[in-house]
Structures are given as C-alpha cells and as structure tokens.
C-alpha cells in the first residue's frame, strides 16, 4: 500500500507521476488527467482558480485512497492536485493507480476521482468574460 498524495502550486508533471507509479510487479496502470476546458455549460472560460484547505484536503484524499486499497487489489496510488491560477489546457489533477491486473486499476482510479470531487475540500472558481463564479456554490 504505497501512496503519494501532494498538493502543488507549480504545474503538475505527468512524467514524474508515471515514473513513480510504474513498478516491476504491476501489469496495468490507469492514469486520469483532469484538464482545464475552454468552455463550461456553453460559456467560454478564460481561466480557473483553485483553492484548497491543504491539510484537510490531504486528510480526505488519504481516506479515499485507503478505501481504494480496501476495495480493490491495487499496488500504488498517486494523487497530485494543483492550486492557484490555471490557464486553459493546464492540469488541475492527476490520479494514477497501478495494479497487477487492469480492472482494479481502472475501477480504483475512477472511484478516486469521483470521490475526490465529492468530499475533498478544494474549490474551483471559473472566470468568464463577464464575471466569475465559485463552482457548485449555489443550487
């Protein structure tokens, strides 16, 4: 049960993530890369800003990765999240999971990103031509 959980202000590095996750006893690796999209609900997005309650966010991500290890036979789990201002095309999150067999890697990776979006105290503000909004803040 190896995990690497980090919150960075600098750009995330895909190669560093895959280097860490690879190992001789794994057969399948699934990597999810979130990217900043140029549009949301039909509105052009200029940039995003991410804010995290760092200590608690790491705490909550640890809970999720622990659950992933309990649910699936996975070997290593990596979660890197970025904070600060991100331009279109930049990477807010990378999740990587290795396992002996690919099904566990896929299932766990998807579970981790789905759960992260529900419970981890990180917030995203979208900037538009004509304003800005904290995502999901209002009904």
């Amino acid at each position, binding site marked *: 049960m190896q995990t690497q959980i980090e919150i960075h202000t600098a750009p995330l590095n895909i190669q560093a993530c895959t280097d860490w996750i690879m190992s001789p006893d794994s057969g399948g690796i699934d990597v999810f890369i979130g990217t900043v999209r140029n549009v949301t609900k039909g509105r052009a997005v200029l940039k995003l800003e991410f804010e995290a*309650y760092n200590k608690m966010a790491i705490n909550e991500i640890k809970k999720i990765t622990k659950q992933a290890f309990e649910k699936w036979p996975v070997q290593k789990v990596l979660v890197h999240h970025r904070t600060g201002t991100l331009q279109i095309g930049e990477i807010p999150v990378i999740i990587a999971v290795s396992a002996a067999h690919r099904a566990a890697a896929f299932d766990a990776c998807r579970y981790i990103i789905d759960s992260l*979006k529900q*419970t981890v*105290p*990180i917030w995203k503000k979208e900037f538009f031509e004509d304003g800005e909004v*904290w995502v999901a*803040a*209002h009904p």
Partner: protein
Amino acid sequence: MEITVLAFGIAKDIFGGATVTVGLTNNATTADLKASLEEKYPKLKHLASYMVAVNNEYAEDSGLIAERDEVAIIPPVSGG
C-alpha cells in the same frame, strides 16, 4: 469563548476575509456556530450546502467545539 473560523472558496467572499471571529458559549456545538454565522452572514443560507470542519474532519451538527479547535467553513467542494 472566541473562535477563529477559517473560510474557503465562496465563504471567504461572504465573510469578506479568510477568517472570521465568532463569540460562542462554552459547550457550543457546530449547529450553534452555524446559527451564529448565518445570523451575521445571511448569504450562507443561500449556498447549495456547507459543512463545518473541526480539526480537519467534517463535523456533525451535534459535535462540540472547543476553544483551541481549528474550525473551518467548507462550502460545496469542486476540486478535480
């Protein structure tokens, strides 16, 4: 007791700062803190939802708050 509450995301906008100080009775609960904040900052009630974290853990409404606790308002999260 005086509690310094950390604010994130839209809560920071609502409070007008990254922290807000609240006066609570001893043995106050999370629910008491929420009521006090909502009175002072009615916009909190317009959020889709929000939680209180005590010492980096989500807190139940009935959970007690102590003077040295690290308390934070957690508006709807949107990471990833």
